[in-house]
């Protein structure tokens, strides 16, 4: 039986032919691989961007000056299977007659949902005990930054919040 690993007898003559076949094989394999990999990876990296639209969260008159209340708005173009996860909650504070602040509920430490304690006038995070003042400044604990806010406006007597990406407070 011939030894498959033996050098061919006239290796020098065959060298260019074998080199060519090697090149063809590696090249064909790479092209086939890239044909599959490029669209697959590109699809994986195609991240969904939430459209930025003004979402109505209620009549301005329903919010009392000095009060902070939980509001919710929906992803303006939710995936049909998103269910409840298409919702986003925010803490809306009416500062005075004309001014509203919409705080993200995500603690700037690691993103857990902060809770508003109306009597204490503080936001408190259940995960690591980060605390924020009513105006979003850090009061104590690990959060590195004040609570993120959403752009907010009043149109035709209604409060509108601009749907925005999840605040990432890494830096």
């Amino acid at each position, binding site marked *: 039986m011939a030894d498959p690993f033996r050098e061919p007898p006239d290796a020098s003559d065959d060298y260019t032919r074998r080199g060519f076949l090697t090149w063809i094989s590696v090249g064909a394999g790479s092209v086939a691989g890239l044909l599959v990999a490029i669209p697959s990876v590109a699809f994986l990296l195609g*991240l969904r961007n939430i459209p930025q639209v003004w979402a109505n969260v209620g009549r301005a008159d329903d919010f009392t000056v000095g009060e902070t209340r939980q509001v919710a708005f929906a992803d303006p173009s939710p995936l049909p299977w998103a269910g409840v996860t298409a919702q986003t909650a925010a803490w809306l504070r009416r500062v005075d007659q004309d001014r509203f602040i919409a705080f993200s509920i995500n603690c700037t430490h690691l993103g857990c949902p*902060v809770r508003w304690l109306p009597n*204490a006038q503080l936001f408190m995070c259940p995960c690591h005990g980060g605390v924020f003042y009513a105006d979003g400044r850090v009061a104590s604990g690990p959060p590195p930054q004040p609570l993120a806010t959403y752009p907010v406006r009043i149109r035709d007597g209604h409060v509108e919040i601009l749907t925005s990406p999840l605040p990432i407070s*890494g830096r």
Partner: protein
Amino acid sequence: MLTHTVPRARKSRWFYVFGSATLFVFMLQVVTGIALSSAYVTGSGQAYDSLRFITANPLGRVIRGIHDFGASAMIVLIGIHTVRVYLMASYKYPRQMNWLTGAGLLLLTVLMAFTGQLLRWDQTGFWTAVVAAEQAGKAPGIGTWLARFVLAGSVPGGATLSRFFSAHVFFIPALMFAFIGAHLYLVLYNGISEPPVSGQPVDPRTYRARYHRLLERDGIPFWPDAAWRDVVVGLAIVVAIVVLAIAIGPPELGKPPDPTLVAASPRPDWYFLWYFALLSLIPKWSERWVILIGPLVFGLFLILLPIVAPRGERHPFRRPWSIIVVVAIVGTIAYYSRIGHMAPWSPRMDAPPLPAAVVGPTTGPVADGARVFYDKGCEFCHTVSGYGGIRGPDLTDAGDRLTRDQMLTRILSGAENMPSYTGNLTPRQTEVLLLFLQSRRRFPPPPSSAAH
């Protein structure tokens, strides 16, 4: 192949069962995972309901339980296996690649545990995805992009769960199969390491010849002379997992993954509690570096170990620092797991108001002060007579320890982990709160200060 010769291993023969035990549990996870995936709905809006459906079925409940206890067993067994290999220095020549493929499997197992707890997709599952994204967001430069890659978009939602499902069910297991194949091939190719003998250092020039002489002199066929122990231990572990799954069942599903239910207190499963605790207790400035560099340092340690130390003594008594490393790592994880279980840094936001028996008077300034103590959130972080949180100091005997002025200063100025209450309390609220705190005493006050 089955009957290849392996070292007899005499006294330490039972130490060699943990790798195969991990493999047994991995197969258990594959089988129960396939069963679960046949009914699980990979949709952010339906996954939770499909899990309720699975759990309502008596067999579905047991399968979920097996998969959950199996996950815990994987973590424990691969941990013991790693420690065994490290202590016996089986990573040395010629088995460096055995170690490196094993290190890859350790990392992949941890990733499976993380993605698996997320697929439960209850409230904690949802917030785990958010917390994962926020942690990824701490990477310099690419943080925001990485965070969005984790969420599959700019917000958590419909696309998020599918991404983790794909990772947990296809991507990571495919890598694990490849790594397990390589790991087993290398175990056969290099042979199972013999128990270390003090004073017999590994020398790459003579090792293989010596190993083969050992096998010829004192080897036994793997099947069944050595393998029976693997099978018996594997059976015992499988039986234990199934019994636990039937007796205790799967982890309770929390509330649905609704982001508008803000009264959520996400907690990781037990295998990540120590990390949760570590992140809570390290100094604030170091946090970003620990999140980024901690895993890198551990990964580098695993990769460099067999490259830096491929030769020399194998016996743990000749490598005392290896024992120190194991004790330090296992001790740290155990210690922080315990603390993570208590989570002293988490405010107890469900603490009930102090009962009358603790407060004392039911009307008057002290009773009013107790109400302020609760309303202003003090009790969420401070214990009084066993009620309340443990983030801040216990105030059961605050009246014995602090003067009125010291209390007032602390309340108004706050501290690193306490908000300032300047402008938050009316003069009357401040007054009754101080009276309440001064009434917190273990010892009756001396007559002079009682007149205050």
